[in-house]
Structures are given as structure tokens and as C-alpha cells.
């Protein structure tokens, strides 16, 4: 990755410092995978993960299960009388994995959050003639000597979309990974973390027609221009595209997508993880040219969409960052939203539309011959991370 941030005269000029700085790329981002009761981590803190490695097992239909009494350290039988259930299984992230919790005979007392698998021994609790599906999940708490668990028969494996080191792994709470590489920051994300090669169908910005998302792009993370529509999202999922990157996505489209995600996760069919990321937010804005340039440099490379926080993670090695003029600015909101240009000078306190007084900047936008006066608070400037050795 090349360095692009030489301290310049412009950057130190009065007024320019008041322009909001947009950190485009972050190095070694920390990403989170939220878990819920019934979900377990399959990794432990300090583990190294690679893309595709299972890191967690979700229990999407977890329900409350009365486990009964669990064998403690002094008991050896796994299936005791009186509804006694099987002992807990050790898991990499189990709360009782520390040596301090081991007692006497080496058996660990059951602890909240630990993985529990059972079901078969509870045959008599089912109506006669019904099959007894084994269930698995995490223990919740002990009440009156009997344990409750969040468990179900169906589980889903969560694979790591990135390479990195596990910083935290707690059943039913979360897995945190410090990713290797760099990431492009987004404003919002939806769906599931996913991975694929980056495809940029058109380098000029604009809305991508849903018809451009064909099966030839299957497995890709596609840069979809300034806006993603609900139709484009549906089509992308249908042709096994792994993710979409756009300038913005409307809240209505996001709601449709989330509803579709819920329906899919409720079905028994295993689905391919699909994520989407909006770089600017909800209101329609074109992708900034420095970011589009960076995305163009990443075409064909493996990238990952991460939803918490919203990031597009990529391998940091040898990605040329755009060489921007140090006075490059972009209008991020207001009348000229989406336009880019160069900073000229501070404009002092000015009266803007509706009689509102704001600090102003004089800028030259695009190919305009005349300078434009815009509120400083509507501007942003770009900063990229410095060189990674």
C-alpha cells in the first residue's frame, strides 16, 4: 500500500482543518459477530483464523429447553435418573475452560453459556410416537437444581470472512476478530458477512441496472454504483452474488431486504451468506471518485463484506491508493451533494438559503469555471492510511 498523505501547505491552511475528515481506509479493523443464547463460538481467544474457517455455530430457532439436573464434578454417569441429562461438552470458548474451574475428578461443573447437547434421553417428555430429535444449544441458568438451555435441532455454521486473530470468543455473546489487512469504511451494512472477488461492472458512477447482475457475476462482490434498489438486491441474491457495494441504499429497500433475510433464515434451506454495504448512507449520492479509484484497483481480488462495523475488508499488500491532491474536497450534503473539487479559501460567516448563517468555504467544483460558496459543514476531505510495511 502506498502512502498518499504528505503534509501539505493546503492542509495546514486556515479553515481547511475545519473540513470533516473522512477516514477511507482502516488497518487491522476489529470486527464483531454477535451471538445469541443458543449460539456457540468455535474458536478461542488467540486463535488464528483464515477465510472460510468456522468460527461460530448459530442456533437460529433456539427455544427454551428444560434440561433437568446436570452431572456435576462428583458424578460420572452421563445419563442419570430423574431427567438427568448429558454433561456439557467442552468448547473452545466455554466459560469453564480455565484450569481454575476444573475440580476434583477433572469434570467441570456446568456453567451458564456452555454448550449442551441432548434430547434423546428426554424421550419420555415427548408425546408417544413422536421422533426425538437431538438438540444442542447453550445453558442459560440453573433454577431449583435444574438447568434451562436455549437449544434447537438446527444449527448454522458461521465462517470467518477474513483472516485474523480472535480477540474474544464468548458463547451466546460474541466473537471478536482483529482482521489482518485493511478495510474500506462504510456508513451502513446489512445481511451477513460474506466474501468474494470484487467486480466493478462500470467505473463511471451511477445506478446499476438490475439486469446487469447476471449469473456471470455469481460469487462476486459487485460494486453497484450510487444506489441499490430492492430489485437489484433480490436479483443479486437469486444469481448467487455474494455481496453488493453502493453509495447509498434507501431505508425502505433495507427493510425489504431484512424481511427477505428473515424469511430465508426461517427456511430449512441453507443459504449463501449475502451482505451489502452502503458507503455514504441512505440518501442518494454517487460513490466518491477516490473510493471508486480504490475499488477499481481491487477488481478481481478477494474482498469481504463485514456488517459490524460496516467494512469492505481487503488484503492490504500492494494496493495502490489514489494519489489525491491534498486540497481535494467533496460535498457530502446539501445543494451540491456528491460533487467534488478543490478547496480555494475560507469564506467566513455567510448567509445561506432560508436566511441561515454558517461558516462558508470557497471551492471549485468539477469543471466549473466559477468558484462556489458552500457551508464548510457540508464538505468532507479524504484521508487514507499511511504505508503498511
Amino acid at each position, binding site marked *: 500500500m502506498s502512502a498518499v498523505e504528505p503534509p501539505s501547505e493546503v492542509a495546514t491552511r486556515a479553515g481547511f482543518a475545519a473540513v470533516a475528515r473522512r477516514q477511507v481506509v482502516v488497518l487491522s479493523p476489529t470486527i464483531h459477530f454477535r451471538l445469541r443464547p443458543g449460539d456457540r463460538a468455535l474458536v478461542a481467544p488467540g486463535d488464528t483464523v483464515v477465510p472460510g474457517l468456522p468460527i461460530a455455530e448459530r442456533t437460529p430457532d433456539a427455544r427454551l429447553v428444560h434440561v433437568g439436573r446436570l452431572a456435576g464434578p462428583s458424578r460420572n454417569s452421563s445419563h442419570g435418573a430423574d431427567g438427568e441429562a448429558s454433561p456439557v461438552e467442552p468448547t473452545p470458548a466455554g466459560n469453564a475452560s480455565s484450569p481454575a474451574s476444573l475440580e476434583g475428578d477433572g469434570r467441570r461443573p456446568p456453567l451458564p453459556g456452555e454448550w449442551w447437547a441432548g434430547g434423546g434421553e428426554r424421550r419420555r417428555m415427548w408425546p408417544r410416537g413422536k421422533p426425538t430429535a437431538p438438540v444442542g444449544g447453550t445453558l*442459560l441458568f440453573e433454577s431449583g437444581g435444574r438447568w434451562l438451555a436455549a437449544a434447537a435441532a438446527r444449527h448454522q455454521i458461521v465462517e470467518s470472512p477474513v483472516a485474523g486473530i480472535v480477540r474474544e470468543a464468548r458463547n451466546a455473546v460474541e466473537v471478536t476478530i482483529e482482521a489482518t489487512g485493511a478495510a474500506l469504511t462504510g456508513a451502513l451494512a446489512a445481511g451477513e458477512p460474506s466474501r468474494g472477488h470484487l467486480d466493478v461492472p462500470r467505473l463511471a458512477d451511477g445506478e446499476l441496472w438490475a439486469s446487469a447482475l447476471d449469473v456471470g457475476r455469481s460469487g462476486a462482490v459487485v460494486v453497484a454504483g450510487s444506489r441499490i434498489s430492492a430489485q437489484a438486491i433480490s436479483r443479486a441474491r437469486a444469481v448467487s452474488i455474494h455481496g453488493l457495494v453502493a453509495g447509498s441504499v434507501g431505508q425502505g429497500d433495507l427493510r425489504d431486504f431484512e424481511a427477505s433475510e428473515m424469511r430465508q433464515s426461517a427456511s430449512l434451506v441453507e443459504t449463501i451468506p449475502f451482505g451489502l454495504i452502503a458507503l455514504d448512507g441512505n440518501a442518494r449520492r454517487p460513490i466518491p471518485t477516490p473510493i471508486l479509484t480504490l475499488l477499481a484497483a481491487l477488481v478481481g481480488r478477494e474482498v469481504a463484506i463485514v456488517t459490524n462495523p460496516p467494512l469492505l475488508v481487503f488484503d492490504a499488500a500492494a494496493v495502490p491508493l489514489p494519489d489525491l491532491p491534498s486540497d481535494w474536497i467533496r460535498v457530502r450534503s446539501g445543494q451540491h451533494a456528491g460533487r467534488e473539487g478543490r478547496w480555494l479559501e475560507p469564506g467566513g460567516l455567510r448567509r445561506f438559503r432560508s436566511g441561515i448563517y454558517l461558516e462558508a468555504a470557497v471551492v471549485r467544483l468539477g469543471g466549473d469555471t466559477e468558484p462556489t460558496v458552500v457551508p464548510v459543514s457540508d464538505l468532507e476531505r479524504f484521508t487514507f492510511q499511511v504505508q503498511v510495511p
Partner: protein
Amino acid sequence: MISQSRVLLALDLGSATTSGAVLGHVGGRWRLIAHVAAPCHVDVDATLFRLLTRVKLTDPKMLAELGAGEAADIRALVATWPRLVARTSPRRLVAVLAGSRRQRRRLETSALRAGWLVVGGSAEEDDHLALSRLALTSEVGVVLLGADRDPGGDERRQLPDLAALVAAVTRSRPELSVVLAGGAAVYEPALAAFGESIPASVRAVGQPVCGQVLLAPDAEAGNPPGASLQEILEGLRTLPNDSRLGVARSIASLAQILDRPIEVLEIGLQGGLWSRSEPVGLGHPAVVSSHACPADASFAPDNPSEEVIDGVLAWSTTAQDRHRVMDRLNDLRRLPWGEADGDGAVFRLAAAKAAIGRLVESSPAMLASSVPECLIAAGGIFAALPPSIVALAMADLLRRPGVCHLAIDHARLLGPIGAVEEEQERRRLLADLAEDILLPLGGLILPAGIKVGRSAGRLRLKGATAASEIELHPGTIEVVDLPPGRAARADLDFRDAVKLAGRGRHFSVDVRGGLCGLLVDLRDIPMRISDRPESRRLALEAWQRGMWPEVDE
């Protein structure tokens, strides 16, 4: 610190806006010398540097009088002059667990008034899995388990399981703090392995709260009911020198100094504040204060609900679909200073009004109180809006019959001054600064019970140098010119009996002027506007255009 200084830099570090002010001891009293507001991404020292540079350019003698010397190095002044700092505490999430729906609602009310974002459940409504999900959510910072002081059978039966659930959750999430309120405190031994248990009353504000069990009173304790628990939860949520609580403290001191009831409405990105302080007792030796600072009174709440969208649409003067409003609210949250002019300003006004509406709804007891003598607007959302439209917003939302004076904390000094710990010192500072802090917007006369017709009566305004008379028309807002600093007597003769100070037809009240003069609001109380969106928008637009003629520029 204050008694030894000649100058102070007052800073309100908000979530969206950083406000800086220079306070100087000049001519034997504290004065506001200059102030500035900037988006929070701008470096604080750079903001202060810019402010002091302007002071130096405008009035170098003033800077010298403040102790800067002739060849003052502004950077050195920024670094060395003492600071009064208040900051907005970040939003935090509490999981409320209770045995019954009734108890959950009480606990949630206290938590919401304390500024927490709340997720809640009860054993009566939810199973243990749902309650575990709430408490294990990684954004949750505190679990509040509460019961009546003497829990009834329905609650008592559920409490052992709930205590076991909370104890189990703390095993998975040792960073959590737990508050056991009311009768739930007896289950504190169940959490003994988790952390040190301390009565909430002995915990200092700003002390780290991870891994603690706090024992608190039940949700009905205090005056008004729930105030004791609210205070404890506020202490858990806030950073030291929290700006919002600072405003509430300043208002209490100001009410004592000015010897009149005062209310403040503050709307910010992370929430809002409605605080009221009223002197009581013979000779008014004490002040009774109450406040609520709900997080959902933010002008741009996170993940806006349908009710929030309805609220914004109800106050919007432009036709927009729901999704568009949601997009704009989300973008306003992301870029609170974005598009502060033109359409953006109109949208921000609608968002601010909707936030005030939520704030008012959250405190029905305060709405039932009499109109205060002084009503103050505060918060970054009002910083860029014209003063007249801020006055209109307050008149639109706080519809109580009476006469009051409207003002705005334009330099956002109430928060930093509230950070002064010693009460006497704070009062001395406020006594000097009261006139500088509160920019007068104008007087507001709001009668109730105006009947429809051609004329509601007449108003005669007698000032020191001039007198004027106007006809009062039902359903309108009449604006009478009365400049800031001027006082006058208003004689009102209504055609029918109305409610103002009491019930009657003739009233004579003292009013003070402001930037938008004297407002006589002859609209209904509560305000009745058509339910049809187009008619409603037209009505709002007509009132708004009268107060904000530049809106179409």
C-alpha cells in the same frame, strides 16, 4: 478555581456540536466575551484559537484586560487559561427485567427519564429465553432487576428465577453492572460471586461501574415517584460533568437567583432534557427541581420508529413519503451539521419539533404544572435556526395557558456552568452572567378558551416611550414589536372569558421584549389542526412563514 481566575474558557462538548466561550471578569463582574459553535469533528483547541484570534482582532484591549498582555500568544492562552468543561455522555443501553408487566413499566419509566435506552421484559410477558437474550445483548451495559419494596405474590414467585438468570448472565458478561431495585435487593447473595455489592447511595458519580452490584430503592421511591431510582440510574449512565445534568443544575441555581420558576428544553443528538426549577417556601429559600432527559428526545434517534416518523411528518411543512423521511433522519444522525440551510433547515425544524413533542409526552406531570415565568431553549439543533422560529417551536409544543418569557441559551453555557461543583460559586457566576447567557427571544401570551369568530378582543401595549394597540384574531399568532431589554404592560380585553393567569375577560400583565418581540398565541390549547396532511401542512406553513419569511430564499 473561579474565584482565583479572571478568565475562563467554557466548553460544551456535545455529540454533534462543540461550543466554546470566553468568560472574563471585566468591570467587576463576569461577562460573556465571545462564543463560537462548530461541528464536533473540529479540534477543540483550533476552535478556541479561532475564537481568541477574533477577540484579539476585534478588541485587543479586552484581551489585555483579561491578563493576556500586549503581545499575547494565542496558542499559549488556549493551553493555559482554565477551562470549564461539560460533555454529553454517550448513549447506553439498560436491560430492564421484572416479574410483572406493571413493574417493568415503572422501571422503564425511571430508566427512560434517566436518559437510558431501554430494552425490557417481564416474566409475566416473556419466557426466560427472551429475557436472557435481552440481558446478553452485547450493547447492554447495565441490567436492572426490580420489584416492589414488598413484592406481591405474582412478583415474588418470579424473582428467584430472574435473580438466577441475572447471575448467569453476569458469568458470561462480567463487564455488566447490575442494579437490584426494591424487593429484588434481597437476591443480592445470588450475585455474590459476581462483584462487590454496594448501596447505590455511596457510589460516586463517574466511578467505573463494571462488575458491580448496586442496591437501589424501588421504582416508586422519591418525589416525584421514581425520582430516587432515576437519580441512581443517571449516575450510572453519565460521565463526570455531564452537560445535560449540568444544565439542570444551572437552572436550579438560576431559579434561586432570579426568584422565579424556570424551565429549560434542551434537544440534542443523544437525547433531550426538560427541567423545571421553582423557588418554594417563605421568602423562597429553597428550590424544587425535577427533570427528565429521555434518549428518544434526540432530534435524530437511532433506528427511528414509526411513531418517530409520524411525529416528523406531523410537523413537516413539505410533502414527503415515510421512507424519504426515514432516510433523511438517518442521514441527519450521521451528519448532524449536514445541509443546515434551505430544505435541510426546514427538515431539522420538523425533527426538532417532533423531538420536543416526544420530550413533552414523556413527562406528563411537568406538562400539568403551571407555565413558568421563563422558558429557555437549549441545544445544538437551535444554534443555526432563526430565533423567531425557535420561539414558535416552543409555543407550538408547550401549550399551557399563561404568560412567560422565552429565551435561548445561545452560547450553550448552562452545561459548563453546571459543572461548577460548589453551589455558591455557581450562583455567583450565574448572577453575573444571567443576562449574557439568556438571549431574549420575546414574551409569550398564551390564552386558553378563545372562541372562533372575527375578533377575540384587543391588546394594548404600554411601554416607557410608546403604546400600541392591535386586534386579536382567533387561530393566529400576533406579533407585537417589543425589542430586547424593553419591558411593557399589556392590557388584554377579550370578547369572551378565557384562561390566562386565571379565568376572565380583562387582564393586565407585564411582558418583556426579545428578538422576535411579543407573541400573542391565539390558537387552541391543545392545538387543533386538521388531520388531513395537506391542510395540516398549509396551516403549519402559514404560521411558519409569518415567523420565518426567509424560508423560501
